[in-house]
């Protein structure tokens, strides 16, 4: 059995007091906290190993390079990619999506082509496509959501056609916590020859990911949401597809040879990693994955399922509280509104009680529009959260209701 109290002790920040109160951190969708194992790894890496990678023939450089490439292997195994060539380190999900939007756009998109994104995406999975479509004269088409926040797959199928070149959908929507039916979305897209990018920023830390089983063409996530550093993320892409794409950024390390007349690009994965890679960030992802594997992904999923079920039950008992996104397929995040109370007001008071939640649009304005609201209060969970955290949230909400009643 998973021992949450012990896990909690691995996260130094969780013993912080906020305004003299114990911190109840329920903003894990925005970023997760880091276990001491990851923090200590940063320290030991910078104190014992650090040197630029791929660049020197000296001992430390080789050692750094080895740790970096091992991190790539760890990620490859974690998501079951076929080859380390399919693992590109980026600075985060947002950059990964921008990379695909640009490079796929340059290579494959012509005027009149269509890109599909869903109504419930994070801005990072909307704006890059808008920008690319504008540049290329392509069309951004929206997969509508149903009243409960699930994507309308029937309508989705009708939208697919021979002009559809790429479908970009979140595995788990950040504002609602809903797990989208990505397998079906991918299979349907492939029938018309479209590629699929899955934004896994809110999935990788909660669900076991198998990119071969999903059969997605691209999968993206951020280190900072999976207990690792900020400034690092991953783009998985099928080798064959990545090979076809033109590079995104130019610079050191992504070239074979450079001359003013002709520059040849390096092979995968380096072709997409221009400049000094954030090798320490990559190592921190590997360390975080090791930490999660030690606990066990199934254990984590079970624990987080228990949390969301408990939270849903307890929150629904509160009068005037309405959950936004009532699909049954959810993980680790609940969005809700309080009748007659603005989410900002609620968030401010909860904060004073030491409870960190996120309020607002969650970088998902079109989702808010879909529900006809200006924002929600979102409680999002991670491995170190407990039922007591949820009890405190419930108490906090009741206090909020009292103050604004």
């Amino acid at each position, binding site marked *: 059995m998973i021992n949450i109290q012990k896990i909690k002790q691995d996260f130094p920040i969780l013993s912080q007091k906020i305004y003299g109160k114990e911190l109840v951190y329920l903003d894990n969708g925005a970023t997760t906290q880091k276990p001491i194992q990851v923090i200590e790894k940063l320290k030991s890496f910078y104190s014992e190993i650090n040197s630029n990678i791929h660049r020197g023939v000296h001992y430390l450089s080789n050692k750094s390079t080895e740790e970096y490439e091992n991190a790539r292997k760890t990620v490859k195994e974690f998501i079951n990619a076929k080859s380390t060539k399919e693992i590109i380190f980026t600075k985060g999900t947002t950059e990964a999506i921008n990379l695909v939007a640009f490079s796929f756009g340059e290579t494959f998109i012509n005027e009149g082509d269509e890109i599909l994104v869903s109504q419930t995406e994070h801005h990072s999975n909307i704006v890059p496509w808008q920008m690319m479509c504008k540049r290329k004269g392509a069309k951004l088409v929206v997969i509508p959501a149903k009243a409960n926040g699930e994507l309308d797959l029937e309508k989705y199928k009708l939208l697919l056609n021979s002009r559809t070149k790429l479908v970009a959908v979140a595995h788990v929507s950040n504002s609602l916590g809903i797990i989208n039916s990505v397998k079906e979305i991918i299979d349907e897209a492939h029938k018309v020859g479209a590629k699929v990018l899955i934004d896994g920023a809110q999935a990788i830390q909660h669900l076991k990911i198998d990119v071969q089983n999903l059969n997605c063409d691209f999968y993206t996530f951020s280190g900072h949401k999976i207990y690792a550093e900020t400034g690092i993320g991953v783009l998985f892409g099928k080798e064959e597809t990545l090979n076809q794409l033109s590079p995104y950024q130019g610079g050191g390390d992504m070239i074979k040879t450079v001359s003013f007349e002709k520059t040849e690009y390096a092979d995968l994965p380096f072709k997409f990693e221009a400049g000094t890679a954030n090798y320490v960030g990559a190592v921190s992802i590997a360390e975080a994955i090791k930490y999660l594997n030690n606990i066990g992904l199934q254990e984590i999923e079970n624990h987080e399922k228990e949390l969301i079920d408990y939270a849903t039950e307890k929150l629904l008992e509160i009068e005037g509280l309405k959950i936004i996104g009532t699909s049954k397929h959810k993980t680790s995040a609940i969005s809700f509104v309080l009748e007659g109370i*603005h*989410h900002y*007001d609620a968030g401010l008071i909860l904060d004073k009680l030491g409870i960190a939640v996120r309020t607002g649009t969650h970088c998902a304005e079109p989702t808010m529009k879909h529900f006809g609201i200006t924002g929600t209060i979102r409680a999002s969970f991670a491995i170190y959260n407990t039922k007591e955290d949820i009890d405190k949230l419930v108490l906090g909400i009741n206090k909020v209701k009292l103050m604004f009643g």
Partner: protein
Amino acid sequence: MTIEEVQNQIIEEFEIFEDWMDKYEYIIELGNNLEPYDDKNKTTSNLIQGCQSRVWLNAEMKDGKIIFSADSDAIITKGIIALLIRVVNNRTPEEVMNADFSFIEKIGLRENLSPTRANGLVSMIKNMKAYGLAFYSKEK
């Protein structure tokens, strides 16, 4: 009273609060009692879009003084708006233009003015001063 005197008055008022609860309850009360805002002034050009709460701000000249009115969809934001208006309402453009709002920090509400643009208050203060400057320039 000068702007400074009003600010000092507010600071004194806030000194009696023993804890944040009392303070915020007072702010909520101020928010609930804020002078109603004329709906016809809820125009896009009067809207300050914060990430979290929205603020509307209107300014008119009357007898050489600026009359501010404002609104927000969040009560706490409204409460702070009430304080800001109390400080600069019905004053000359020059006074408004040069107003400092350091009392906000002194009464322990600085977190509400963080650069996160969350509640739109930082922009609101900027806009108030901009009105001051605009009316001042027009007068010249």
